[in-house]
């Protein structure tokens, strides 16, 4: 009982802290660094999933873990593009904030794809996971195409 209360208070405090600090936001350089870390972590898991799904390396028993990690990381994507979080070596395009509606649309597509991957992550059928993973990749591409510097 006491523990629940402490838990609840902690959550409320965290939520308040986040929403208060959210008004000012992190320094742009830090926000970019954080965002890039999330992206890098996601690509790491995506790379691992692709190797497992193709049977090229690794133990397929770990595929679900990578898929879930990707799902967990993906949940944060909508939160890490704060207004003004752009510095010189950032690959984010100003279009993210100039066209928030379109950006929200691609983020929603990504979230839907991530959630479908989460639904099948425990499946034994590699083809089902592969198909869901390809959808995630499609969503990644869709956003990179419109909102990332074209240098790849």
């Amino acid at each position, binding site marked *: 009982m006491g523990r629940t209360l402490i838990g609840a208070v902690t959550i409320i405090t965290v939520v308040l802290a986040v929403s208060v600090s959210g008004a000012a936001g992190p320094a742009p350089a830090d926000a970019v660094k954080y965002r890039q870390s999330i992206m890098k972590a996601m*690509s790491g*898991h995506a790379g691992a999933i*692709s190797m497992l799904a193709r049977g090229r390396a690794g133990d397929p028993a770990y595929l679900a873990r990578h898929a879930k990690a990707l799902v967990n990381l993906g949940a944060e994507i909508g939160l890490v593009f704060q207004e003004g979080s752009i510095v010189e070596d950032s690959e984010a395009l100003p279009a993210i904030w100039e066209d928030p509606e379109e950006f929200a649309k691609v983020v929603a597509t990504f979230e839907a794809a991530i959630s479908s991957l989460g639904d099948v992550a425990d499946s034994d059928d590699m083809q089902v996971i592969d198909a869901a993973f390809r959808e995630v990749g499609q969503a990644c*591409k869709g956003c990179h*195409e*419109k909102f990332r510097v074209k240098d790849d």
Partner: protein
Amino acid sequence: MCFARVVTAAIGLCVTGYALAQESAISRGEYLIHAGGCIDCHTDEHDDAIRLAGGRALKSPFGTFYSPNITPDVETGIGAWSDEDFLNAFWEGVNPAGENYYPTFPYPSFTGIQREDLLAMKAYLFSIEPVRQAAPEHKLPWFLSTRRAVGVWKRRYFEAARFSPLADRSDQWNRGAYLVRHLGHCGECHTPRNRLGAIRKDRELAGNPNTPDGEVIPNVTPHRIDGIGNWTADDIEYFLDIGMFPDGDFVGSTMSAVVENNTSKLTRDDRLAIATYLKSVPPQPLAD
């Protein structure tokens, strides 16, 4: 009576045979249209643009070109073209009136495409819905506004020749060479050009750091640092299939549409053929 029936049956068979051959040419043509990347340039960029009806602006250091409509509309498309007209466009770089095309239409690559492939592509294009839509006029500086200027360029840089397979290379390599150099015209973006816009054959696929819209086109030779030398053939095949780099990142450049409209539509065998060819070209550093 009996004779008449046999004749009728024979005509029936011939018509069916012809129809089947046409149908297979159409579906083969559709495949080749994807392999040839026709959709990217011949479809405008806005969301409700009609596929293959042209109008897309292509910026170049020499001005802005607008891609033509290649649906079978007689007035604004290619509906009045004969087989010869079609072949000449790709092989010789001339329109049905005999005028030179600007090499924005990549005939220096397309000249290598085989006759039966081109005719299948034409069969497909003639099977789609004609769309009446004229492309805007190109916006070019005065000295290029006459197509005669292209004639001078062609005499110096263009050589009409079909692809001929090398006997000492595997079928897979030859198929890859055909797809990369000719049908897929990869070098039109991935190979640097000289000041007059001609592709530098000595720098095949070494990348293009300065393009008019500021996009950096990567080096796809097997150079280990500047190119894709640390990609396996399987990595290349997978990239062309779903657009993922070996490090798990997903492509977002112009190549994204190329993967979407072209390479992901190919068979795995064709993608592996492309990979085999790419692994075989001389590694080149980005700067020369």
